[in-house]
């Protein structure tokens, strides 16, 4: 009995090193400050991680498909600015602003997808270029001004960022629902399988009759869709946005995805692990804030935790602590 329990735990450790790292880490912080595990705080962390998290879900698809997406941060600024601006436009109002924003953001994703998928351009450079170009586009749209909802009381727009249902914040619900949906899409459907194949070996995928370009294209559309959702939450949460709200998020998102164990070479990773990655980052930030540490101490601790977590993950997989590299 105890024996099997140990065995199961050993197996879990080997397969889900990152999950174990997460649990250890949560226990550690809770011992330090019991408030950490307070239900309000937990919801608070998940709620504020939701934006990063939703973006990371999309980027997981792109990364498993063997590419990068560095444009998500500046795309987030774009979608938030656009939805707010259209919201204030009497011709649109919230009901039209949201679909219009989704359409425009998906167009940007389609550009990424077209360039990387169909034209086969290097995704790092393409999305870096798009990072810059979309920022320019956002500035042009807003004229460089912050966007705000003038009469916050008169709109239901805030529900996406501030509302709750059954006592659970709506952003948390969106994040969980989207994670479940995309998790199933990736793990259980033919499309998901194709994403893994294209990321794992694009040539072999082509030889197997998988439309490589279209699959890559779709991963970027998914990524853009997630950014649009995140942008909606963001805009609704703050009821206003600067042109730079998403700046720098691209690397944080990537860190979460990688921390979850997706390989940058493509072909591996799961939505579940990405969620863990997001939560680890969210709880590190929150835990250190609660511990009253300076934000730069957070940086250093995040560094150490990222490396320890990934190390633990791969060390359990290979069954050895140290790398065999000579």
């Amino acid at each position, binding site marked *: 009995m105890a024996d099997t329990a140990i065995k199961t735990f050993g197996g879990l450790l080997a397969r889900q090193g990152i999950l174990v790292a997460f649990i250890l880490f949560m226990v550690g912080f809770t011992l330090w400050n019991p408030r950490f595990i307070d239900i309000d705080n937990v919801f608070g962390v998940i709620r504020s991680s939701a934006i990063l998290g939703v973006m990371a879900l999309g980027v997981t698809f792109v990364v498993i498909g063997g590419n990068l997406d560095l444009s998500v941060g500046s795309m987030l600024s774009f979608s938030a600015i656009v939805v707010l601006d259209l919201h204030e436009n009497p011709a649109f109002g919230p009901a039209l602003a949201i679909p219009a924003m989704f359409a425009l953001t998906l167009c940007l994703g389609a550009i990424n997808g077209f360039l990387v998928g169909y034209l086969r351009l*290097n995704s790092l450079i393409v999305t870096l270029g798009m990072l810059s170009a979309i920022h320019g586009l956002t500035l042009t749209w807003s004229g460089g001004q912050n966007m705000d909802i003038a009469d916050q009381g008169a709109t239901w727009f805030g529900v996406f960022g501030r509302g709750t249902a059954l006592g659970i914040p709506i952003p948390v619900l969106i994040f969980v629902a989207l994670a479940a949906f995309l998790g199933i899409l990736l793990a259980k459907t033919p499309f998901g399988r194709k994403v893994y194949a294209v990321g794992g070996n694009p040539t072999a995928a082509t030889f197997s009759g998988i439309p490589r370009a279209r699959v890559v294209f779709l991963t970027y559309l998914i990524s853009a869709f997630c950014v649009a959702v995140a942008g909606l939450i963001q805009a609704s949460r703050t009821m206003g946005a600067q042109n730079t709200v998403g700046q720098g998020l691209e690397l944080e998102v990537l860190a979460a995805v*990688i921390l979850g164990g997706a390989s940058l070479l493509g072909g591996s990773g799961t939505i579940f692990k990405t969620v863990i990655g997001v939560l680890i980052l969210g709880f590190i930030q929150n835990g250190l804030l609660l511990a009253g540490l300076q934000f730069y101490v957070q940086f250093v601790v995040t560094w150490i935790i990222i490396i320890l977590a990934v190390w633990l993950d791969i060390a359990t997989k290979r069954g050895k602590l140290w790398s065999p590299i000579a």
Partner: protein
Amino acid sequence: MKTDILKKLVQNGAIWGFILLQLVFFELAGRYWAGSSTTFIDLDNLLLLLKQSAPIGIIAVGMTIVMVNGNIDLSVGAIYALCGIVLLDSLGWPMMEAMGDGAIPLAMLIALATGCVLGLINGLIVWKTGVDAFIVTLGAMLGYRGLVFMYNGEQPTSNLNWTMVDMAEWGIFGIQTPALVLLFVVLVVWLVMTRTVHGRNAYAIGDNREAAVNAGIRVGPHMLINFAVIGFLAALSAVVFYSGSGSVNPNDGMLFELWAITAVVLGGTKLTGGKGSIIGTLGGVIAIQLLRRGLNHIGADTETVNIVIGTILIVVLLLDRQLNRKASGELKV
């Protein structure tokens, strides 16, 4: 044979062709469109360009080595800032202050050593834990930045030493110190990468890690050295830049890594390793710097600059692909 050479020239020369194109375009656009009174193609202007390319350029050279080796370093921006702080702060230590200007070379050495150590830490973690360099240096990007802030809180670290500024602004034939250092670094690293055993092994490791291991190349130490070198070069870049500016913002150097990588890739280095050229990287750095200055020259505003730079990056990639297109009947994979 002849067409082969021509093809190679076109392939490797794409970036230089692009630079030439930019020069001509900005000269003409500046004169006839923006009505600028100054010329763009002008020796002083080009020398200034080279000088301004130095901070990113020196780092990009290091990035080329690491990328050829099959790794990447995202922490260079933070190393750059941290070494800048070490340089300026160490000048203010009582012992060093007592030495007067004689402390300058010592401070520079301390800063360079710091860079090496930071690079070594990255390299050691990559080697010993087997965690991917992308993750290790992504973490270090945060961690080292944290150290930058710890050093002096959120305040800039300043120490304006006019002797050092004069050194940075010194030059011969109008080529100022930063440009000289950049050219020197390019030359030395080019020699190392093309002529030495270490350089060739770095290519082999990046090209086919398993083959290198099978052949008995000790992959770890080579990676370690290369991380130390990029740490050193990031520090050198900091020394060159901060001796001329005298003050470090704690968030200086952010995004340097991305621009350095962009320059390296534009210069023809493969992201997956095994292929790349230092000279190409120099071209990539100059091309990007030229683009920025050119856009300023013709009076483009912030949003236009952003849009154009983004678009150009993609267009260059597209052109490069067109130029390097395989023969007809290519395998459609």
